[in-house]
């Protein structure tokens, strides 16, 4: 069983990781865990004229590794094997793409706490993911 946990460094994402760690004991076989962080593609055409790809990738890598850090620490502490991945793009689309490519069985996400105007204006990654994938998505509140 392959489980994908999208991680953005927030407490919401950590709740999902904690949930997985707790439920691993109940599963017959240890699931394959995949952590994914998506970095927004901030480099528009204009930026590319002045900043080289190497610098941009270093920046994404640094941000991505920082976002993954706390989730990795939890899994390391629980001595669970896992894979981690950083993609560049739009979060929901990138999550769906990675889930498809890796033939993931299930996505586990932490529910986003944001509400009100922010949610209305910015929408939620979860909503979009739900529309993009055909596999079960588990939300941890």
């Amino acid at each position: 069983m392959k489980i994908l946990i999208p991680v953005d460094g927030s407490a919401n994402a950590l709740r999902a990781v904690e949930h997985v760690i707790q439920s691993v004991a109940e599963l017959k076989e240890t699931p394959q865990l995949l952590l994914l962080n998506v970095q927004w593609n901030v480099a528009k055409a204009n930026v590319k004229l002045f900043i080289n790809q190497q610098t941009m990738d270093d920046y994404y890598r640094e941000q991505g590794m920082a976002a993954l850090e706390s989730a990795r620490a939890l899994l390391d502490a629980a001595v669970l094997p896992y894979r981690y991945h950083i993609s560049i793009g739009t979060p929901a689309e990138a999550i769906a793409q990675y889930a498809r490519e890796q033939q993931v069985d299930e996505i586990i996400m932490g529910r986003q706490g944001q509400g009100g105007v922010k949610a209305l204006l910015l929408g939620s990654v979860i909503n979009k993911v739900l529309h993009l994938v055909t596999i079960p998505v588990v939300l941890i509140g």
Partner: protein
Amino acid sequence: MLEMLSTSQFWFDVSKIIVIDLLLSGDNAVVIALACRNLPEAQRKKGIMYGVGGAIGLRIVLTFFAVSLLSLPYLKLVGALLLLWIGIKLILPEEEHGEGSIKAEAHLWGAIKTIIIADFVMSLDNVLGVAAAAHGSVMLLVFGLLVSIPMIAWSSQLVLKLIDRFAFIIYAGGALLGYVAGEMLIGEALFKPMLEGRLYLYWLVPVMCAVFVLAMGWWLAMRKASVVRAIDLVDGRVPAKLDAEL
């Protein structure tokens, strides 16, 4: 001056300027942050500070130049054509994740040079858009400048997120740039004789220009690959530990 505030035309212009600033300012902050990345820690803050300061100064100078330049014959025509192109470019999807040949600057002045040159190029879009929307009103120009300055200093993914949520923002922005391009075209002294007695042209031309930008943007976007793929950057693996290690 105060009665200006009560006209709908004024508020329409103000909102045009805010939207143009929002859509055409975001890149500066990204370039400033990234250009200073390769500097030693101690110089990074300095680089960002000088970079932001220089960029703001340049933006102010460019804006006032743009206004006086635009009063020259033919330049409104050129400006309008440029704006049409900027609008189309806004709608087009991003290019591929390609390997560039730009070298990263590891020195303070190198980084600042990159920032200033980048700002010059990027500000042209913004300044032209704002100048067109301001119709020569100094108050609106200064307002446009004030709105854009925080955007030079602070990068935010807010605009990216808004566009992701409401894809039509891009099209609305493109149409708006087309519209102000049309207004600028109408303002070209060259066309004055043609406009006489044809008041309808004052709204028809801007609307036609907006439609033109949308149509061109759509057409060119259709010809490109429609799905933008996420790029894989890092793939790591933490294997199961052997029992002996525990």
